[in-house]
């Protein structure tokens, strides 16, 4: 869309609006909060105009026009809901539903299906088609991620265009014509793109479903949270869906600055650790489940001894090992605790993997930037040294420290039981708490709670604050992540003026380099 800064004035359903020249009618209508129904049109894909549901009436034009392929011009008057338009849409809906199996009762898309929505909004509820519907293949495997149902497909070709125009793998095509027409996948019919699952979100109907999410839950029984994928440093914005405290799926959420409309399959499927049956749910001391108060007292005693011995001084060696999966608020509390103890040895390790030139980042953790900002170094731990106390936040795979590390006492936060820990606190995942992380490109973004972890558990931030309160007289932690952020904003130049609500659902860019230099 080339605008050259020119704008045009149009009237849509009686409302005047000024939009950039070259805007199509669907986009222009969004400016006046009017949704022109559409299936095949997508703002990031080429316009094909094959679904015909976006027909609108334009004053002075003899025939209805499709909103996706008609750009507004100056002085244009558009009607998106006139009688003529309504009648045309009813016709299009009737046509689209002629061969549709109407198997909503067993269809995963039900509840978030454009065919359902528009049938209610724009259909008549009746059909004049008295013949047998076409029978086409159902439950067709397109590999281990996507399942195709040819009967439900309305041939909008969004999936074809996505893999062609944005992934460059052009794996899907259209074969035959008329009533026999169907999508086909190249060669052995298995998709290969590492971004293929985006076609499931793109599909406006239930033709493409996720093998992972299939039949797990009706969407209207789920709770959704606007949060982030924490599979790598990109920080793709997602909507995480949970039911009965189990995380069931992630779908991308639009953020023009980060991930646009998309996310990678690796990230999308990287959530099952949340539902692991063997998660550590209560604190343990010397291998036994104990109440939080007892665990906190034991940990405080270990730390108190270290503090009296002089913290990181040569006589008693204390190591603070953070993880890049921690939120800024947790890192801030951890750094505060280590400050109170006088510990200077602060480390963390970044799990590395494959990156690409789309979204995948080689750092397979969300907040390495935050860990650095709060004073932790991604440098190797001195394994030769005899450590007296190690406070360790285990990474998702349990790692982060050398296996052969010598430590007399260990205070460990982990997802699974750590047998070597003297005091073992449960670690929550990013889906079970609120907080902020610094994604690639120094973008500060929020993670939000999608489900509740074990009942009455304490988050790591609360545990750290209470430990500090036990060691440092008069120290008071904060109740919520938003309040913790407010405290960070007072102490760190990079966060100056930032608030929980100010960060919003899309995040903000930080000027980190200066702040780090200044600090």
């Amino acid at each position, binding site marked *: 869309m080339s605008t050259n800064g020119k704008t045009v004035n149009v009237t849509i359903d009686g409302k005047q609006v000024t939009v950039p020249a070259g805007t199509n009618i669907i986009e222009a209508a969004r400016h006046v909060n009017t949704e022109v129904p559409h299936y095949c049109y997508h703002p990031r894909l080429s316009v094909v105009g094959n679904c015909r549901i976006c027909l609108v009436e334009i004053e002075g034009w003899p025939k209805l026009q499709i909103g996706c392929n008609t750009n507004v011009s100056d002085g244009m008057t558009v009607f998106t809901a006139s009688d003529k338009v309504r009648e045309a849409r009813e016709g299009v809906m009737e046509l689209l539903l002629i061969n549709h199996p109407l198997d909503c009762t067993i269809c995963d898309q039900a509840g978030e299906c454009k065919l359902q929505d528009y049938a209610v909004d724009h259909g008549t509820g009746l059909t004049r088609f008295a013949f047998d519907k076409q029978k086409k293949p159902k439950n067709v495997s397109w590999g281990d991620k996507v399942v195709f149902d040819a009967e439900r497909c309305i041939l909008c070709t969004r999936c074809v265009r996505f893999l062609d125009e944005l992934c460059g793998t*052009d*794996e899907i*095509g*259209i*074969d035959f*014509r008329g009533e026999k027409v169907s999508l*086909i996948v*190249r060669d052995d019919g298995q998709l290969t793109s590492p971004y293929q699952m985006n076609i499931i979100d793109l599909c406006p109907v239930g033709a493409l479903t996720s093998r992972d999410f299939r039949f797990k839950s009706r969407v209207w029984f789920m709770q959704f949270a606007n949060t982030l994928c924490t599979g790598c440093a990109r920080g793709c914005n997602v909507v995480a869906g949970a039911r009965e405290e189990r995380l069931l799926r992630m779908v991308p959420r639009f953020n023009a600055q980060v991930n646009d409309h998309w996310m990678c399959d690796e990230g999308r499927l990287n959530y099952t650790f949340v539902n692991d049956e063997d998660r550590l749910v209560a604190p343990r001391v010397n291998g036994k489940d104990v109440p939080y108060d007892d665990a906190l007292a034991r940990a405080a005693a270990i730390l108190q001894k270290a503090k009296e011995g002089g913290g990181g001084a040569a006589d008693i060696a204390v190591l603070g090992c953070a993880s890049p999966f921690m939120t800024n608020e947790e890192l801030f509390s951890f750094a505060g605790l280590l400050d109170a103890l006088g510990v200077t040895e602060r480390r963390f390790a970044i799990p590395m993997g494959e990156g690409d030139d789309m979204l995948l980042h080689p750092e397979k953790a969300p907040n390495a930037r935050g860990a650095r900002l709060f004073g932790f170094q991604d440098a190797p731990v001195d394994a030769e040294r005899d450590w007296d106390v190690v406070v360790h936040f285990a990474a998702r795979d349990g790692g982060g420290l050398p296996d052969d590390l010598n430590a007399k006492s260990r205070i460990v936060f982990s997802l699974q039981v750590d047998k070597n820990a003297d005091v073992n606190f449960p670690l929550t995942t990013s889906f079970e708490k609120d907080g902020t992380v610094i994604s690639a490109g120094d973008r500060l973004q929020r993670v939000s709670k999608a489900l509740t972890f074990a009942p009455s558990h304490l988050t790591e931030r609360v545990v750290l604050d209470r430990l500090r309160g036990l060691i440092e007289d008069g120290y008071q932690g904060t109740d919520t992540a938003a309040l913790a952020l407010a405290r960070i904003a007072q102490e760190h130049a990079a966060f100056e003026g930032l608030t929980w609500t100010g960060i919003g659902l899309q995040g903000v860019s930080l000027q980190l380099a200066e702040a780090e230099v200044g600090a």
Partner: protein
Amino acid sequence: MSFSPELVGQVENLWTRYPEKKAALIPAMHLIQKERDGWFSNETIVDTAELFGVPDMHVRGIVGFYDMFHATPVGRHVVRLCKTLTCKLCGAGELIKHVSTKYGVKNGETTADGRFTFKLFECLGHCTTAPMMLVDEEKHESLDIEALDGVLEGLK
């Protein structure tokens, strides 16, 4: 496998007549099909896509959509018998039955000796001389069983 220089020359000539290369796909594909034994194998589809710089799935879609392109091997000749209204009224039905009994092929099938592939076609545009059929690119009109046999038996 690359196309013959003659074919590439013809395709390049076609490109000069359209605003973009892609627009010349269908006329070019008729030439390509002729050079590649009358049908589009996977290899031919990929070669065509490469020549035009379009996704191979796009070419595959064209082969699937248009009846005059073949996605499976064909006989030495392709016989297209018109089955639309006028030809049917003038006796195409009898001819179809005859082909089936005498040559053993139904719509879309190839004779055992590989001589011809038999296809029923929608209107071929010669209603005045119905029934008619197209053998490769040559039309045969005002057919009856005798005339049809004369044509089919003459095929090499």
